C-alpha cells in the first residue's frame, strides 16, 4: 500500500465516522458531553485533507502518519485529539522511512495505535475507555495468520471489548464523574474505536479486491 492508498484507508474511516456522528454524540450525551461524534468525524476529516495533500507532495508512509496525527490534534483538541494523535504518530514511528506499507504489516498498525493511546492516556483495562477496544484488538491481531484473518479476529475482539464496556463503571475521563450511573452505557470512545477498526478492515478488503484483477 502506498501513501495514496493509505489516504484511501483514511477516507473509509472518515466516511464511517461521519455516518456515525449523531450516534456517537448520543452515546457520549448519555454519560459525557455529547461531542465525541464531532471530534472523531472532524478529526478524521482533517486527517484526510492533510494526508491527501502530503501524499500529493510525495510524503512517505511514515511521514503521512505524522502529518495525519498533527492534523487530527489541531482540528480536534479534546481528549480524542491527543489520544489519536499519539496513535497516528506512533504509527509514523513504526513505519518511518517506508515508501509502502506491506499488507502483512497492517495488523501492526493496530499495535502501534494501541501503544500510542495507552502511553498518552494511561487507561487500564476495565477503565471503560477506548483502550478496552484497542487493547484486545491489538492483541488479537498479533496472533499469526493471514492479514485478513488477523484483522477479522481483531474486529471481533474489538466488538467484544466495546460491548463489555457496557458493564463497566468509568474510572477515567469525563464519564468517571457519573460513578455507577455510567453502568449500562456503551463507552463512546470504545464505540468509535470499533468503527475505525471495521473501516480498516473494509478498506483492506477493498484494496485486496482491487489488487486482484
Amino acid at each position: 500500500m502506498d501513501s495514496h492508498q493509505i489516504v484511501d484507508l483514511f477516507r473509509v474511516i472518515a466516511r464511517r465516522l461521519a455516518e456515525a456522528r449523531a450516534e456517537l454524540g448520543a452515546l457520549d450525551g448519555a454519560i459525557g458531553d455529547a461531542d465525541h461524534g464531532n471530534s472523531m468525524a472532524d478529526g478524521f476529516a482533517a486527517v484526510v485533507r492533510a494526508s491527501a495533500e502530503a501524499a500529493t507532495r510525495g510524503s512517505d508512509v511514515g511521514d503521512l502518519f505524522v502529518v495525519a496525527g498533527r492534523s487530527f490534534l489541531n482540528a480536534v483538541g479534546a481528549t480524542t485529539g491527543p489520544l489519536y494523535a499519539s496513535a497516528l504518530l506512533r504509527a509514523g514511528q513504526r513505519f518511518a522511512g517506508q515508501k509502502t506499507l506491506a499488507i502483512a504489516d497492517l495488523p501492526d498498525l493496530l499495535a502501534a495505535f494501541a501503544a500510542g493511546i495507552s502511553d498518552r492516556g494511561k487507561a487500564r483495562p476495565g477503565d471503560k475507555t477506548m483502550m478496552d477496544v484497542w487493547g484486545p484488538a491489538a492483541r488479537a491481531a498479533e496472533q499469526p495468520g493471514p492479514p485478513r484473518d488477523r484483522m477479522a479476529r481483531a474486529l471481533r475482539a474489538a466488538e467484544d471489548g466495546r460491548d463489555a464496556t457496557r458493564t463497566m463503571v468509568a474510572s477515567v475521563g469525563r464519564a468517571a464523574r457519573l460513578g455507577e450511573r455510567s453502568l449500562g452505557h456503551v463507552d463512546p470512545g470504545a464505540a468509535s474505536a470499533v468503527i475505525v477498526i471495521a473501516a480498516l478492515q473494509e478498506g483492506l478488503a477493498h484494496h485486496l479486491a482491487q489488487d486482484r484483477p
Partner: protein
Amino acid sequence: VKKLINAPQDAVDEALRGALLAHEDLIAALPDSPRAIRALDGPRPGKVGLVIGGGAGHEPGFWGYVGRGLADAAAVGNLFASPPPGPILAATQAVQGGAGVLYIYGNFSGDVMNFDMAAEIANAEGIPVRSVVTTDDIASSPIESRAARRGVAGNVFIFKIAGAAADRMMPLEACEAVVRRANARTYTMGLALEPGSLLETRRPSFDLGPHDMELGVGVHGEPGVVRQKLASADESADLLLDRILTEMAPQEGDRVAVLVNSLGSTPAMELYIILRRVRQRLKARGIIVHKSLVGPYYTSLDMAGVSLSLLHLDAELATLLDAPCRSAALTLP
C-alpha cells in the same frame, strides 16, 4: 429546542467573532492563531503571564476573563472540547514577559493532555510553565479523591486571584502557590432543571422528566451525579450549600465569596432568589460574605440550572479578590 444560530458547525467561531467585535477595546485574537485570545492591556515585562482556556460553550468563559488584572490570554477549543496544544502554545509565547507562564484550566482529561503537551514544548523553548488544574466541583468525586474532581464555575474566583497575583508582579512560584490555595479553598456544586441542547440536533443532551432535576451537574451538558424530585429555590439552595459547608467547615467569623452562576438559560430573578437564601443561611452561621457575584459567569450552553461556588477567603485571598480588574465579564473598579 430553538436556537439563534446559523450552521451549527460555525456557531463556535461565529460567537467568538462576535465576542472579539463586542469587546475590541479589551481583547484580540492572535494574528496566526484565531482561537488564542489575548488582552490588549498586557503583557508586561517581568510579569508572570497567565493563560487560561478550555472548550467553547461556557461563554463568557474564557475570553471574558482576559484583561488587566485577570488572564493575559485564553485558548478556546471546539464545543466542550479542550483546545489543542497549538493555540495554547501560541498564547504562551505571546504573553510571556520573561517571568514564566501560569496555566489554569479545569480538570478534564482532554484539557490536561493538551495543556501538558503545550507546556512541554514551551518548557523546551525555555519558557518556564507551571499549571494549576482546578478541581472545585465537589459533586464530581468524593473528598478522598479530590484531585479527580472537575473544575467548573469556581474558576471565576481562581482566575481572579491569579490575575491579581500576577498583576502585583508576584513571581511564578508564588503565583502558583496562591492559586493552588485558592483552588483548594473553592467549592462548587451545580444542579440542572433542564439539560442543554446540542447545536447539531437541537435536542436535549439527555432526558430529564418534567418533575425531576439533576444534582451535581458540571458545565458540559453532562448528566449530574444523582436525579431527584424538583425542589423549591430554597430547598435547592440548601442542597448545594449544605454539601459545600460540610466540606468547607468554616468557623464563625470566617469570610467567603459567593458566586451564584446561571448555567445558561436560568434568568436573573431565579439566581437572586437563590443568592438571597444562601446569604440568609450564611448569616445565620455567622459567616461573613465579602463579595457576591450573580449571573451567567460560566455557562453550559443553554442548560437551565445554577451552580453555587464559595471561596473560603483568608487575608491574602481577600486582598487579591478585591484588586481592580477589567475584562468583558468582570470589572472591579
